[in-house]
């Protein structure tokens, strides 16, 4: 146990300069884009007077030299304050918190669905390699991976909402209906189906192909031959011996995807009008809402660092050969 704490403490210490570096890098990267938040606001308003623009820039702190802006930003970050979004007239943390539930709901559902179904399909394909069922799974996975995600989304809307009328075409809930309890959950579930399926289809292709490849690789190893020589049946070989070893790369992939959870999926959120973080970040780019964008990027980078540590821990648990050092 003390060894585990030592490990964690070291990883956290290592993370501090990484996150700081990311924050500084992001800051300069965003300031490379021409124009600022005040320009965008004035442009949207269809014009502004000189004095008003100057007032706005002064209030947003945009009239200060870049190093002063950076210093202020880092000072804020150091005190766990992500700053204020002048465009939204709200604190950045408040904005992010408002979008978090919708983002997590969609991403967790989609990734979980893709992970589970991906494993099932991948294992099935690997167990029937070079048979028709393998070809079918591979072709479907390839198609799902290659089709633009927004197009799938729009086609789903056309089929299930416009033509069949089974599911709502977008949004997250029936607005103004004041639903409670089970009715509320059912309402959100209905809105969740199409975006989850669309997004899962994309990840599903990844997981299926990875699982299949990984299974086939393990199948070729000596201990599998040994197991077969012992007289174990194919089923037992597949699940007891091959599967458990083949699942490790899947955990790596899952870790990567969980790390990008907060980024959401801009395309799916846009097509389905889902109020997630991906859209918030995407719009912030065009609105030059630097504080908001930096906030989202910073939290995302924290998550990536955190999940990496977690994946290492899970590795050690799954494969006793891996040691935490």
């Amino acid at each position, binding site marked *: 146990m003390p060894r585990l704490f030592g490990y964690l403490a070291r990883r956290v210490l290592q993370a501090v300069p990484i996150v700081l570096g990311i924050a500084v890098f992001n800051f300069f990267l965003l300031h490379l884009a021409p124009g600022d938040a005040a320009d965008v606001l004035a442009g949207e*308003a269809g014009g502004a007077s000189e004095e008003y*623009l100057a007032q706005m820039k002064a209030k947003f702190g945009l009239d200060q030299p870049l190093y002063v802006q950076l210093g202020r930003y880092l000072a804020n970050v150091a005190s766990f304050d992500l700053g204020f979004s002048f465009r939204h007239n709200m604190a950045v943390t408040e904005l992010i918190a408002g979008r978090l539930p919708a983002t997590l709901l969609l991403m967790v559902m989609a990734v979980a669905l893709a992970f589970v179904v991906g494993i099932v399909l991948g294992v099935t394909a690997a167990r029937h390699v070079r048979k028709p069922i393998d070809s079918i799974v591979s072709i479907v996975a390839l198609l799902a991976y290659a089709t633009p995600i927004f197009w799938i989304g729009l086609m789903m809307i056309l089929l299930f909402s416009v033509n069949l009328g089974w599911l709502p075409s977008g949004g997250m809930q029936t607005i103004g209906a004041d639903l409670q309890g089970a009715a509320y959950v059912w309402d959100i579930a209905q809105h969740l189906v199409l975006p989850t399926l669309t997004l899962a289809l994309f990840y599903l292709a990844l997981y299926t192909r990875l699982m299949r490849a990984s299974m086939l690789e393990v199948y070729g190893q000596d201990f599998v031959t040994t197991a077969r020589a012992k007289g174990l049946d194919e089923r037992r070989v597949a699940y007891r011996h091959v599967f458990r070893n083949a699942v490790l790369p899947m955990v790596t992939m899952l870790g990567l995807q969980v790390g990008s959870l907060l980024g959401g999926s801009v395309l799916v959120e846009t097509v389905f009008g889902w109020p997630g973080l991906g859209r918030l970040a995407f719009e912030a780019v065009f609105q030059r809402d630097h504080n908001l964008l930096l906030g989202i990027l910073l939290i995302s980078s924290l998550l990536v660092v955190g999940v990496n540590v977690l994946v290492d821990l899970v590795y050690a648990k799954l494969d006793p050969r891996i040691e935490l050092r």
Partner: protein
Amino acid sequence: MSVLRFVVSVSLLVFLGAPLSGAQEPVKGGTLTMVVQPEPPGLVSAFNSAGPIGVVSTKILEGLITYDYDMNPKPSLAETWKVSPDGKTITFNLRKGVKWHDGKDFTSADVQFSALKVWKELHPRGRSTFAKLTAVETPSPLIAIFKLSEPSPYMMSALSGYEGQILPKHLYDGTDIPQNPYNNKPVGTGPFVFKEWQKGNFILLERNPAYWDKAKPYLDKIVMRIIPDASARAAAFETGEVLLGGFSPVPLNDVKRLEATGKFDLETKGYEYLAPLFLLEFNLKNKYLQDKRVRQAIAHAVNKDLVVKTVWFGFGKPATGPVPSVLTQFYSAAVPQYPFDIKKADQLLDDAGFKRGTDGKRFKLVHDFLPYGSDYQRTAEYLKQALGKVGIDVEIRSQDTAAFLKRVYTDGEFDMTSNFFYALPDPTIGVQRIYWTKNIKKGVPFSNASGYSNPEMDKVIEAAQIEHDRKKRKELIGRLQSIAQEDLPVLDLFEVRFFTLANKKVQDHTNSAEGVYGSFSGVWLKK
């Protein structure tokens, strides 16, 4: 006998006339779901004129007056008003018994505060619209007297719930107005009360039971949904999840298909207040474009009808000058015109001394277009083709909105843009900014970016600002249009026709020049 016939015919008229005139009895109740795009940055228009804010804000907050299709003023928070003969004093008699949504009384102090502290200081156009406003006197809670240093005839067009919105003094006085928390949860006097805003998702408004116009509003709720994808918006209209949207809410190439279903009304009226214009700005510092003949040649080389018909699917009307034809009080057609004529264009360019080279090209221009969607990009592509035919090599450059604005209005590093302006109800408010020497201002979006400066034009512009006589003012603005068309520092291509798409269930959604910026108190849903 004749009396009987009279009675019969009158009752027949009443019986038949009612449905024919379309004056059906409004039904109360129901929820109107509409789209607003893009998501507004706040919900108060009093100091931010962004379009999507106007769509939401005007249902909650109101102005002193409202307008009909021809921009004639109608009572709103002001019941009557009187302009003094010298045009320097306007007395507004306010409506009695109007309450803010939080229960406080609406008084002349709110008007005074909004005019002097909000519009005049913070509204992007207000600083010039209300430049001559020196004081607002409040002899009683129901009388507000506007005092002007010079007559400002255009001011009467800027008092709607969108352009001259009244804010509650008791919630805003002494605060940092643009950052007041009530900007995201406004308290108004309007027919609908703000209920909830889930960012990125929806805005919910509910009926104001204490609205001053007793029978109204008819709707129980208005839901404004934020649907960022245009095709998804079209789908939401088709499924009936969304009933109304303004500012051309679906892709132009989807309109025909939606119309064919027979489920929708397509309304292009209701944008007269904004009078949108699509135009090309020329940088007069460019060594080719500073020659008037080159600009006139470009005007001859562009087929405006074709742009409207093919690129914009007919949602426009070729422009004849800087004042759009919807501004009936000011529009003048008797100005120089440049009909589509490639030979004439070639001739003008030859005369200017820019002969074709061995490759058939005369010179090169870079074209920046306002990145507001695929229609804008296609227009740029058309321009490249059209100008290529007269030997002008056009390179299209794309960038996002912030970069475009900075390039054109701060850095001035452009040759030619395609852009989009609101002419607004009065040329002094909307049109003069493009041509006035005093409006060559670095860093100010939608100012005089071409760098055009003509003392004669300045004289006309400045005279029109303070001319109180309607007829003389119209003449001055006619002069403005002639000079602008002769000099062509910008080329007005066409008047953009926005459309409102509404499910046939929605009644009376467009009944004035304000369109979707109206209060919606009279909108109702057919059962």
